[in-house]
């Protein structure tokens, strides 16, 4: 009797250990897919917004190319103010057209970088490359657009994660 009980307990323990290791492997393998949810479709801005977004390309110090939407403020006196707009990980650059319009109405121009692997941006997203992209976008505003730091606002809609197992 005791022999059977011991064998059952050992089997159960083994199952728990294998399941636990499997869960750890699952987390490791699926991490990128669970953090960077890239299935949202492109949504064109409503024509009534007259957003006139431009697609600009820029690169980091290692030569990796990125793109961003740039929405310019039409008012000349305030066009030097910029929002560097980082969308959430379950979104893409086209989702926030109305928000760009709101910031534009406040007096800002907007630069919204798209992340690698989103829409038609090549590559795979990850913390390291996103940090390089953020720096490259900032450098673009500073060097190409000649925007002083005191005129730049960062807007962060941080990354999301869908980790539920069921």
């Amino acid at each position, binding site marked *: 009797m005791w022999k059977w009980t011991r064998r059952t307990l050992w089997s159960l323990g083994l199952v728990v250990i294998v399941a636990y290791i499997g869960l750890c492997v699952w987390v490791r393998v699926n991490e990128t897919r669970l953090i960077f949810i890239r299935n949202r479709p492109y949504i064109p801005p409503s*024509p009534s917004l007259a957003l006139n977004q431009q697609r600009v390309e820029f690169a980091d110090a290692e030569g990796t190319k990125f793109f961003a939407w740039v929405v310019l403020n039409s008012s000349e006196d305030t066009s030097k103010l910029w929002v560097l707009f980082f969308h959430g990980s379950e979104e893409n650059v086209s989702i926030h057209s109305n928000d760009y319009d709101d910031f534009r109405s406040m007096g800002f121009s907007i630069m919204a970088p798209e992340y690698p692997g989103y829409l038609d941006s090549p590559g795979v997203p*990850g913390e390291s490359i996103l940090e390089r992209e953020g720096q490259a976008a900032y450098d673009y505003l500073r060097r190409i657009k000649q925007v002083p730091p005191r005129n730049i606002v960062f807007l962060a809609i*941080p*990354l999301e994660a869908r980790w539920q197992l069921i």
Partner: protein
Amino acid sequence: MAINLASHVEAAALIIQSGFSSMASIVQHELPFVPIRLLLKNKFESDITIGRVNMPVLVIHSTEYDRFHPFPHGQRLYDLAPFPKQLLRIRGRYPQDLTSAAVNPNFFSEITTFLNAHTAFHLHQPLPSIAPVIAATIDSNGIEASVAQYRSLRTGNPNGFNFREAELSRLGAELLRQKKTNEAITVLKLNAEQYPQSFSVFDSLGDAYVAAGNTAEAMRNYQQSVTLFPDNQNSSRVKLDELQRKSASALP
């Protein structure tokens, strides 16, 4: 990413909307027995980097339940941020709610006030959205009165409110969430009348008709949306296909 960037470059301000303190803390909540800190490659440790930020910080976070954006994360980021800083508590259960004037009417005016107070900017206060005005009239005098009010304000005071397409779309979505389906349909029909070239307006109207159980009108509006934006990525196309499939299978 933006918090990390703000921790080592100069800028006027940092606005964090629905932030979390670290990726590990979010995942640990879902998988409490897994050594997440050891496993994660993407750590996004905002709770560490926020302390190094050297600019005014505005933390915006919904107080309503959100499994993946719990309010304590926003509170923790605010607590760890250096001064000057402000915590803006808002409503909303979904990302699209946060900037909706139907849910948070003062969202952008609060941002404007914060930036004007803590930077050298002299920003324009955004026009108030028409959505809360219409929502209040629906509650007090009914949907017909609100439609009449919209038409009257749109012609009589066109620069007094923001009449953008998104205002009524978001109000319609909010009414649908409140199960006020007939009011939502009326509001979205009014929006479609104002913006007949917008595919998304007809998509929203189709959703409202689905909620009302009116398949024929839903299909008609999804079809109009697809006509205006034929791209495969238009979600109306998928919804229309689904309704057509259901209609076909329901035939004897």
